[in-house]
């Protein structure tokens, strides 16, 4: 069955550093992959979508890569800020439904 793995342990980094989150998937060939941010008690909020024919996508301080050979996506936040602290979810998709990973909790310390 389809399986999505994200860093299970929380990621703690210092303000100003680059945060890198990993998403690996197996038994799946998604046409695209999305990243969402979720704050406690809130619904997920869309950040970025990258398609299978794109290697990299950027939006402001965010960068996402998508390696269909490795079956992996990396999500980078540069010049991180305490306000970036949240849980980040990856979601490979195709054929209608999005399947979410369990999320990685990021904590940025001032």
């Amino acid at each position, binding site marked *: 069955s389809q399986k999505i793995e994200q860093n299970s342990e929380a990621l703690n980094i210092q303000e100003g550093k680059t945060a890198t989150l990993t998403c690996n998937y197996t038994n799946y060939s998604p*046409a695209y992959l999305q990243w969402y941010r979720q704050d406690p008690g809130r*619904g997920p909020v869309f950040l970025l979508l990258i398609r299978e024919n794109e290697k990299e996508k950027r939006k402001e301080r965010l960068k996402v890569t998508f390696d269909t050979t490795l079956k992996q996506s990396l999500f980078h936040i540069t010049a991180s800020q305490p306000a970036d602290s949240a849980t980040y979810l990856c979601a490979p998709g195709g*054929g209608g*439904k*999005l*399947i*979410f990973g369990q999320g990685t909790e990021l904590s940025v310390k001032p």
Partner: protein
Amino acid sequence: GAGVSQTPSNKVTEKGKYVELRCDPISGHTALYWYRQSLGQGPEFLIYFQGTGAADDSGLPNDRFFAVRPEGSVSTLKIQRTERGDSAVYLCASSPFSGGHGELFFGEGSRLTVL
């Protein structure tokens, strides 16, 4: 606001009772999704509507769960004979993109607690 609206925001019920959760999507969005989320986990897919029809209901855990979207807008998730294991946050999302090829707009969720 013009976002996805879910009601109730909190629902406490007793084991064995029937529950309905409502989702008002963003106007004009053709796709509607239901997920449930347990503490510390990612959203778990339940069902996806394209218009009025369920395009994929493979995530519904058993026949106690049922969802409808009769006019292609508002959707209701119905849970019969609730069990304690049904306790979770139920999230609804809508999208203007058909076939799931774009971003989802989530509501704040309905927190269900089964005692």
